[in-house]
């Protein structure tokens, strides 16, 4: 079954409504996206290279509703949400399904030179600024991205002006709340102008009792010259949730970018990281953590393209898969012709904690140049029986030893996070996740 048609048909039948619920700058790219989708004809499935273990077509196939007419929500989910990351004072924005809701702390506390608001609002009020970036990092010829561009009506716009260094982290909480099967096309645009500094934490939740949900998400990040951008993403959804997230980042000279994505609980997730290093003397840290149990499926895909000299990049992706969960990692480093003195490393390490868990790993290096230092490696194994026995001889019960080892395995991924309170919090969330508790929701009023 071709899952794409239902969405293109929906768009063609409701063009006016889609446009009316959005802004001209966003609407302008829709015809081109539709053309691209018609040309490509389908969403990727397991027959496509890079998608061996995850069929995007199957994720989009169910009969999801799309909230084209921007109907408002029956309850005020946003007001009941409390942040589960203590000691981290954030500027909080909430996205319920595909609708952005600023909070009072956000509106009142934004420093000069910083914009955090609804993307549609920004596109209406500052069209020239949004137009300069929107859709320029994302690949228009990519089916998933084109579909997002076709249908997304709103999202989040984060802009940090030249030389502005934002000390407080911005937090975005994505919440699914729907009484009917729902697809939300979410869009995020993060622009850090030259010399700017910004850290964004995004948390994905699904409220209990919600129907099947699918997130189509495209994130574009621009790090200007000498800018420092941190992007953290923690998914704590549930088995009814599918997520296709595509992140596109562009780095200018002297910039640094830290990206860390964690999947703690989910249904089916595909995360893509497309990072383009365009300027010299850059630093890039890309990491990911996946914790699977029951029948969770987590797929991470990365393309880190060094298009300039003197770039340094590190990729680290780790998985612990238990029960019947499955994982996939496909990552590549590409050093383009002429990009000399690049140092690029990639590591993927996985633990299969049960006989039924499965991992697919495919690291790749493409080097079109001399004078570079690159390496990649992948290992998949079991928990260390020797360590487990050693711990047991000290009286630590086997189950607890197992948990401690699984948690210890994730330590270096957590260490890639620069925000210290977030690091502490994530450590705690991971501990609880391995203890079998729903990780971060104890203090949270949203009732996810």
């Amino acid at each position, binding site marked *: 079954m071709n899952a794409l048609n239902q969405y293109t048909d929906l768009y063609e039948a409701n063009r006016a409504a889609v446009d009316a619920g959005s802004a001209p700058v966003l609407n302008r790219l829709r015809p081109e996206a539709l053309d691209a989708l018609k040309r490509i004809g389908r969403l990727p499935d397991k027959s496509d290279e890079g998608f061996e273990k995850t069929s995007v077509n199957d994720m989009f196939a169910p009969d999801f509703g799309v909230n084209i007419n921007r109907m408002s929500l029956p309850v005020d989910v946003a007001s009941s949400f409390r942040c589960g990351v203590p000691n981290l004072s954030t500027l909080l924005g909430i996205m319920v399904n595909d609708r952005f809701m600023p909070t009072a702390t956000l509106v009142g506390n934004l420093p000069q030179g910083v914009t955090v608001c609804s993307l549609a609002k920004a596109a209406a009020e500052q069209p020239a600024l949004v137009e300069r970036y929107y859709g320029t990092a994302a690949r228009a010829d990519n089916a998933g991205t084109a579909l997002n561009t076709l249908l997304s009506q709103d999202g989040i716009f984060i802009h940090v002006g030249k030389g502005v260094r934002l000390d407080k982290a911005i937090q975005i909480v994505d919440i699914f709340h729907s009484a009917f099967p729902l697809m939300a096309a979410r869009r995020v645009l993060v622009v850090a102008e030259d010399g700017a500094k910004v850290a964004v934490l995004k948390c994905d939740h699904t409220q209990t009792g919600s129907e099947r949900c699918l997130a189509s998400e495209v994130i574009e990040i621009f790090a200007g010259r000498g800018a420092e951008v941190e992007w953290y993403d923690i998914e704590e959804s549930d088995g009814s949730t599918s997520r296709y997230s595509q992140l596109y980042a562009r780095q200018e000279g002297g910039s640094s970018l830290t990206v860390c994505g964690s999947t703690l609980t989910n249904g089916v997730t595909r995360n893509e990281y497309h990072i383009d290093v365009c300027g010299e003397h850059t630093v890039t840290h890309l990491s990911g953590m996946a914790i699977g149990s029951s029948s969770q499926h987590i797929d991470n895909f990365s393309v880190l393209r060094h298009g300039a000299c003197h770039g340094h990049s590190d990729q680290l992706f780790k998985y612990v898969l238990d029960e019947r969960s499955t994982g996939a990692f496909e990552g590549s480093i590409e050093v383009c012709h002429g990009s000399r003195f690049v140092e690029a490393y990639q590591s993927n390490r996985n633990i299969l904690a049960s006989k039924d868990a499965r991992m697919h790993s495919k690291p790749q290096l493409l080097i079109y140049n001399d004078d570079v230092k690159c390496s990649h490696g992948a290992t998949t194994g079991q928990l260390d029986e020797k*360590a487990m026995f050693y*711990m047991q*001889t000290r009286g*630590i*019960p086997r189950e607890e030893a197992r948990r401690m080892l699984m948690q210890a395995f994730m*330590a270096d991924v957590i260490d890639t996070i620069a925000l210290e309170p977030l690091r502490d919090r994530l450590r705690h969330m991971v501990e609880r996740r391995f203890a079998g508790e729903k990780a971060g929701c104890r203090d949270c009023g949203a009732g996810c």
Partner: protein
Amino acid sequence: MSDEILLKVTDLRAKVEEKEILKGINLTVRPGEVHAIMGPNGSGKSTLSSVLAGNPAFTVTGGSVEFHGIDLLALPPEDRSHEGLFLSFQYPVEIPGVSMVNFMRAAVNAKREYFHEPALSAGDFLKLMRQKRAIVELDNKLASRSVNEGFSGGEKKRNEIFQMAVLEPRLSILDETDSGLDIDALRVVAGGVNQLKTSRNATIVITHYQRLLDYIKPDFVHVLYKGRIVRTGGPELALELEEKGYDWIKEENL
């Protein structure tokens, strides 16, 4: 010495994969005693300690082990520890990502839970760590490091005795604790063991060489050869072995 029996091993047999390593071990240990088990390479010394501690890599094929009246072989390794058995590893395992502090806290509190006692408060726990560290002169800095990771050979063995001091076992098995130690470290480690010795607990020292027995004085010396204890004597047996080597035992047991 007392009439009470702490450990009674009767005709213990064990194999790894399809190879029988222990072929009928008999051994009785009473509180307050120090036993040395010596023997050439491959005689089954480390297998004996692994089997007593419950290493799943070995299969017990016969015999019994009674530990202060309890059927030791019926217990998982963690419960053997709670009941008072401690194995000091020949090669202590490195556990990256698990800090010494968390490791010891988990160990101490698991034992307390087994005996239905509440977990130690943070203050009491740190006090306990401080006291026990002093016994083997273990550096405080190691507490925040991952278990055994990057420890020197001497630090690893001191760390074993430190753990023994914290867990206060009734029977400690020291498997080749002298291997990889220089003479100063050996003194510290042996000093720790001797400090922890009481009339109520016992120690089994497994070693190749007589050297360690200069520091930890055994009451009994057993020679293990081809999976059996072939000779038992007093401390003088260790000296005799040192002088004559193991060939003499091998010839006797052809």
